């Protein structure tokens, strides 16, 4: 998964990047399943590997992007970016290394999680009803916004 994640960033051609991203998301869905989160794994495959990636590929084809020309790479900016990323990964390693609970393995589950759609649905409509409705409005606004942005000016 990490290899394909890195390929997303390294590849010069946007199509190759997008396809690496699909593989990376599928591997991530497998990791979710290994954590007994079947619903999230299925959602990951459907929404990310399905919908979002089709959207990305569609836009790439629509814009007809060639692989990036060999522009003069701004070495200072690239080196700065890599340096900040390295600092971040060192921080993460030191924090996780000092975190005591991180050394324990996962406790066993007393019950199967194959009914987690049911449990998540109950929680969603019970405890998280208001956020759920707000998310609905957000999606409506995003839909209207996307349509407005891609409309041709007809005046």
């Amino acid at each position, binding site marked *: 998964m990490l290899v394909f994640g890195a390929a997303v*960033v390294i590849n010069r051609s946007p199509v190759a990047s997008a396809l690496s991203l699909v593989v990376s998301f599928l591997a991530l869905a497998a990791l979710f399943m290994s954590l*007994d989160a079947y619903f999230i794994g299925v959602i990951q495959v459907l929404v990310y590997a399905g919908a979002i990636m089709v959207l990305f590929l569609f836009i790439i084809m629509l814009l007809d992007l060639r692989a990036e020309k060999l522009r003069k790479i701004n070495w200072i900016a690239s080196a700065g970016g890599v340096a900040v990323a390295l600092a971040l990964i060192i921080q993460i390693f030191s924090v996780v290394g000092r975190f005591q609970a991180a050394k324990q393995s996962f406790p066993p589950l007393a019950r199967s999680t194959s009914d987690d759609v049911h449990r998540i649905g109950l929680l969603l409509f019970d405890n998280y009803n208001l956020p759920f409705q707000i998310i609905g409005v957000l999606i409506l606004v995003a839909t209207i916004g996307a349509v407005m942005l891609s409309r041709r000016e007809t005046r």
Partner: protein
Amino acid sequence: MVTLGDYLVVSGMLFTIGFAGVMVRRNIIIILMALELMLNAANLSLVAFSRFHVDPSGAPNYNAQVFVFFVITVAAAEVAVGLAIVVALFRLRQTIHVEDITSLKF
């Protein structure tokens, strides 16, 4: 045995790859993809903690999974609007290279 720390380290590395992508790449579409990687890294650590906190009835903590559901929804909305903006920008400027779009630069 696989520990919680293993998942956290993988999540951190995925986040770092996405972060490096946002910092280094100059193609807006690739930057959006790297943003998706970062959101997914956050989801992975949420699910790992959800599995780690087993409640007395023996089920994982589903609050985190509901939160992951919300994150995925918001990410989908963000990608839809972001790509619409990219298309509008390309129609206007014929470029998606961030260094060519500097109208707001002081």
